C-alpha cells in the first residue's frame, strides 16, 4: 500500500504508528519561526481508544493502517465466541469474548453493529448509541413511591442489569444508551 505524506493528513485518516492503527482526530499546521513546518495531530488508537498527540515534520511518511469496518449482524453466542454475519456477503465470522468485552452487555441477538477489522482480524465492535430492550425481570415498584432519582435493577435479554425508575414493569420496553449503560426512557408498556 502506498504511504501517506503529512500533506495527506485529514480528519479520519487511518495510519499506523508504533504498530497500532490510529485515527486522526484533529490536525493543525504549525511552523515555528526559523524551523521546518510540522503538523500537530491528535490521534486515537483504534484498538485501545487512547488519544495521543504527535508532531509530525512536513514530509514525514506515514503507513496507512489496514483497517476496515463492516456492517454485521450479531447472530448468537457459540462457546467462547460471538458469531456475526456480514449483512452484504452473508459471510460469518467468530469473534472471541475478550474482543467484545463489556460491549456484550448491550448486544442482543439480531442487532446490527459495525465491526472493525485490523489486518483482516476483527478487533472490536461499535454498537448503535441506543438500543431498545424488553425488561426480562425486575421487582415491582411500590405504588406512590415517586421520589426522583430512586432506581431499581432491571435485567434485559443479554443478562445485563440496568438501573431503572420504580414505575418500570417486567415486559416494558426501555431505551438504553449503550455508551453509558443508562436507562433513558420507557418506549413501550407490557
Amino acid at each position, binding site marked *: 500500500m502506498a504511504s501517506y505524506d503529512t500533506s495527506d493528513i485529514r480528519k479520519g485518516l487511518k495510519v499506523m504508528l508504533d504498530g497500532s492503527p490510529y485515527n486522526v482526530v484533529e490536525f493543525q499546521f504549525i511552523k515555528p519561526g526559523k524551523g521546518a513546518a*510540522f503538523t500537530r495531530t491528535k490521534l486515537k488508537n483504534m484498538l485501545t481508544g487512547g488519544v495521543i498527540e504527535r508532531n509530525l515534520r512536513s514530509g514525514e511518511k506515514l503507513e496507512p493502517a489496514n483497517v476496515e469496518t463492516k456492517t454485521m449482524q450479531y447472530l448468537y453466542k457459540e462457546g467462547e465466541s460471538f458469531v456475526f454475519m456480514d449483512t452484504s456477503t452473508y459471510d460469518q465470522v467468530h469473534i472471541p469474548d475478550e474482543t467484545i468485552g463489556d460491549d456484550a452487555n448491550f448486544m442482543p441477538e439480531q442487532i446490527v453493529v459495525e465491526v472493525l477489522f485490523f489486518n483482516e482480524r476483527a478487533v472490536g465492535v461499535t454498537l448503535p448509541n441506543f438500543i431498545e430492550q424488553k425488561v426480562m425481570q425486575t421487582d415491582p415498584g411500590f405504588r406512590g413511591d415517586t421520589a426522583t432519582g430512586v432506581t431499581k435493577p432491571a435485567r434485559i435479554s443479554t443478562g445485563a442489569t440496568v438501573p431503572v425508575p420504580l414505575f418500570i414493569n417486567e415486559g416494558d420496553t426501555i431505551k438504553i444508551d449503550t455508551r453509558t449503560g443508562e436507562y433513558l426512557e420507557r418506549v413501550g408498556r407490557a
Partner: protein
Amino acid sequence: MRALRGYFAAQGFLEVETPARVFSPGQEVHLEAIPAGHGRHLITSPEYHMKRLVAAGYERIVQVCRCFRAEEAGPFHQPEFTMIEWYRAQGSMEDLMADCEAVIEAAARATKAWPTVPVPANRRGEGGQPVLALDRPFDRRTVRELFRQYADVALRGDESVDEMRGLAARAGCQVADDAAWDDVFYQLFLDRIEPHLGSGRPMFVSDWPLPLGALARKKPGDPLTVERFELYAGGLELANAFGELTDPVEQRARFTEEAALRRQRGRAVYPVDEKLLAALPHMPATCGIALGFDRLLMLVLGASSIRDILAFAHDEA
C-alpha cells in the same frame, strides 16, 4: 495601527518603505518565496533592505509591510501577512523587549482589551491558562533553561545530529529518519516545551543555539549561543528579534551554508545579497525585530484563527 504608529513616532523612529520585489528574498532554509517575475521574488521579510538603511545611517527605523511566504496556511499562518519590523542602532535586546511590551499594551488599549485578554481553547497548551495578563514585565527565559525544565535536556548548541537524536529519544520524542539538527531541536521544542510558553503571561525566549541564528550575532562569552529572542503569548509566536550580525565574512559563510542546505533539500536557491554584505561593515551594533501584526490582532482580540481578523483570507481573495 494608529496606536502603534504613535508609539514608534514618540520613540523617534522613522517610518520607511523598502521594495517588495527583490532579487534575494532571503536564504532561510525553511522559507519559500513567491516568484514575482524578471528574476525577482516577493519579500519574505523586509530585513535585508532595512539593514542597508541602518548601515546608511538611519538609526531607528520601522516598517509596516506585507510579506509573502509560499506553502504557509493554517490557523496561525497565511501566505500573505503584515509584518511590523523595526531596528534600533546602538540599541540592546532589552530595548526591543521593552518595545514589545509597549506595543502590545498600545494594541490592547486601542482595542479596549487591556490589561487581560482571553485565550481561545485551540491556542492553549496542556493546562494552559484561559486568560493572559499583559502588564509588564513579561517573563524572560532562555532556551537552555526551558530545555532543562521541560525536557530534562542539558542543551549546549554544538551537539552532533546523532547526539540530538539520542536526547530526543530519551525525552520520549519520535523523530523523522531524515531529521537534521534543527528538525530534532524543533521536535523536542514542539513536543515538550512550546505548549508551556506564554501561558498566563507573555514570555521572551532568548539565547538560541548557534545553528538557529542565521542573521544573529554570537553572544559575548558564549560562542554556542546567539543573541536572539522570540516572543510567545497565549499560544502565538508573535515576534523574533536578533542582535544583528554585522560581520560580512561570517554572514557570507552562513549564507553559503544555508544555500547548501537548501540545495540539499531540493529547495530553490536564491542569489546571495551582495549589496547587503557590502553594507554590513558600515552597520553599527544594531538590534532588529519583526512582529506579526495579524497575530498581534489575534492576541488582543482573542481570535482562534487568523481568518477571524482578516477581511479576506488568501483563499477568499
